[in-house]
């Protein structure tokens, strides 16, 4: 245990020292450095930075756990969070880069010639980014308290300080180079345990292939077939076909995540950092290479972790693990409250089944066709988030691998937090202050304002991470819902419909956000306060069975429809705006991202 702690300190503080060194080397001198890294990032560097920016604590820690318990249903995250890059590469990034400005609200202002549109965009951006950041800050606190056994608040404070140093000092330039380092840390931390585990289970070290291979125990059974059998014998849904709330819900969920991804301002902003339109298209490709590396490993991590967990508790069908003989990782996670066992039948053995009642029930195994008696489930809590973090320990991997996972989790949380902070500070200092309130702000003062706003944003998000509001759990849905129902349609119509006018686009944005928020709140409670939902949060009350998390797709449709109807009644955009759109679409080089 002491050795593990030492390794973890070395891994965590070693990577922090690296981030500081990079920040000092790449500090920002101008607003162009601060907002778009001077426009001189290569597509491959940008792709890596987008990867780190995009893959948050949720991707690193939670996603494989979600897949482990949802099985096939977890595919919505895999397809949704990668398919958005196809939309970005073809529908948004190149044209927005051609236009050549610093921020997303600024693009909306130019295209829709309206300060209202710019302010609506700033508000959407800030709500989406702040809600997202709370999750990162919590991730930092949890990683510190679990791995280094320091106080949650102190861990959070250290994380805030580290981000402050390199984000405030370096702006986009510092953040970009730090994110490249963080990507490397993160991908090693994710894939090394996966390679070990895949090799242990199947003899194939490549997790993507291991998942489709036979088990190494000599049985000749495919890993996925074995997993299907094991889970169905315990009454759970078959792993490879388990649906998530029906095909329509999965469909809407996937679309919402795709267009939400394409509409997240902190991701779009990164495309303004490359020198040309061609480079913007290429960066989307590289981004997906680096993201795909983690996302194609995640299903293997999920399935293998689930199988390992099941095998630990019930190594042979009917021979359950005695609670007294539980392994060390089991005890460690029990301490955190994320794993909980109750010996309901008093036999001293651990029963992990789908039976949530207090009496045994008999089922027919859906694969074996055998009659099975299911004892009541005694694993009363198995938190999904522990799967990635506990995975190396469950598989008995060496201590340095576990230390690496801690550093990787922190890299994922910090890199995403920094990108979001930059999106927030630029939207306030550049769009709200320079663009609307005090247009005669000098470049030097704007840079100073950007740094002050970022410091305030760090303090606010740190406070919210310390005292997470009741709605923290539901917020990711809200962030994606907002991006999908407001920002993505506005940007897309701005490029693909020359005639789209400011009035029509603003009406569309308001309608899209309005209906999405209404739907989320009516099922999840107003601002997620329990008891204030006026329609229940369960399947039968949902509109065609679409869950609130999946509703962004409907919001986007409403946005498009409203905008086109309003356009019919209010007339097209003026000629000089149509010329602006022509120019965005035309071939040729983009100007360096500039101010006015």
């Amino acid at each position, binding site marked *: 245990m002491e050795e593990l702690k030492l390794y973890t300190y070395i891994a965590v503080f070693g990577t922090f020292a690296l981030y500081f060194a990079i920040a000092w080397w790449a500090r920002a001198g101008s607003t162009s450095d601060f907002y778009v890294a001077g426009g001189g990032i290569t597509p491959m560097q940008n792709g890596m930075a987008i990867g780190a920016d995009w893959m948050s604590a949720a991707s690193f820690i939670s996603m494989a756990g979600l897949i482990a318990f949802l099985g096939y249903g977890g595919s919505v995250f895999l397809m949704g969070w990668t398919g958005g*890059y196809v939309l970005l590469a*073809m529908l948004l990034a190149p044209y927005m880069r051609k236009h050549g400005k610093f921020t997303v609200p600024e693009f909306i202002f130019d295209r829709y010639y309206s300060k209202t549109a710019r302010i609506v965009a700033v508000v959407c951006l800030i709500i989406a980014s702040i809600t997202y950041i709370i999750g990162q800050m919590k991730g930092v606190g949890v990683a510190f308290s679990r791995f280094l056994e320091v106080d949650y608040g102190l861990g959070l404070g250290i994380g805030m300080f580290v981000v402050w140093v390199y984000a405030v000092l370096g702006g986009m330039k510092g953040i970009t180079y730090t994110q490249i380092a963080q990507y490397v840390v993160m991908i090693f931390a994710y894939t090394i345990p996966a390679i070990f585990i895949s090799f242990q289970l199947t003899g194939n070290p490549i997790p993507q292939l291991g998942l489709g291979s036979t088990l190494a125990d000599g049985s000749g059974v495919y890993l996925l077939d074995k997993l299907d059998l094991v889970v169905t014998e315990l009454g759970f849904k078959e792993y490879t076909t388990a649906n998530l709330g029906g095909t329509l819900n999965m469909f809407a969920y*996937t679309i919402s995540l795709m267009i939400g991804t394409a509409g997240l301002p902190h991701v779009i902003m990164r495309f303004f950092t490359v020198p040309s339109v*061609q480079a913007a*298209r290429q960066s989307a*490709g590289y981004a997906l290479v680096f993201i795909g590396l983690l996302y194609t490993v995640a299903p293997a991590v999920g399935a293998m972790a689930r199988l390992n967990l099941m095998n630990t508790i019930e190594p042979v069908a009917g021979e359950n693990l005695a609670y007294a003989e539980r392994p060390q990782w089991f005890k460690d996670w029990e301490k955190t409250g994320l794993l909980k066992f109750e010996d309901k039948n008093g036999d001293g053995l651990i029963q992990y089944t789908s039976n949530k009642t207090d009496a045994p029930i008999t089922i027919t195994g859906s694969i074996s066709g055998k009659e099975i008696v299911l004892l009541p489930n005694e694993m009363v809590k198995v938190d999904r988030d522990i799967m990635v973090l506990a995975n190396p320990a469950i598989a008995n991997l060496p201590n340095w691998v576990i230390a690496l996972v801690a550093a990787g989790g922190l890299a994922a949380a910090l890199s995403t937090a920094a990108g979001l902070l930059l999106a927030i500070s630029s939207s306030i200092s550049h769009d709200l202050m320079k663009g609307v309130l005090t247009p005669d702000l000098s470049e030097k003062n704007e840079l100073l304002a950007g740094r002050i706003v970022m410091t305030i944003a760090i303090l606010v998000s740190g406070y919210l991470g310390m005292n997470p509001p009741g709605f923290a759990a539901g917020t990711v849905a809200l962030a994606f819902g907002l991006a999908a129902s407001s920002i993505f349609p506005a940007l897309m119509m701005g490029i693909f419909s020359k005639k789209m006018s400011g009035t029509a686009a603003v009406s569309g944005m308001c309608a899209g956000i309005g209906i999405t928020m209404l739907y989320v709140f009516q099922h999840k409670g107003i601002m997620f306060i329990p008891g204030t939902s006026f329609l229940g949060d369960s399947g039968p009350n949902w509109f065609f069975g679409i869950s609130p998390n999946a509703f962004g797709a409907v919001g986007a449709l409403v946005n498009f429809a409203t905008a086109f109807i309003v356009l019919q009644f209010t007339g097209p955009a003026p000629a000089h705006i149509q010329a602006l759109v022509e120019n965005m679409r035309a071939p040729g080089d983009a100007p360096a991202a500039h101010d006015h």
Partner: protein
Amino acid sequence: MENKETYWSENIRIIFICLAIWFVVSFGFGLLLVEPLNAIQLGGYKLGFWFAQQGAIYSFLGLIFWYGHKMNVLDKKYAQESK
């Protein structure tokens, strides 16, 4: 002016092809047709399951690079014509 318009309509055509494939590999093979495809095995993977958790992502990657390549060719062609 005419150049610009043909460039744009060729771009739209390429996007349309890409998005059709994008839709088929993810929503088609991974969701709507998952059950019939699951009858086919790809190693230890059921084919529909493979598309949903692996194949769609590989296809997305191919699409973005193919689109970038096609557009570079198009950019060159129109840059020369305008000279």
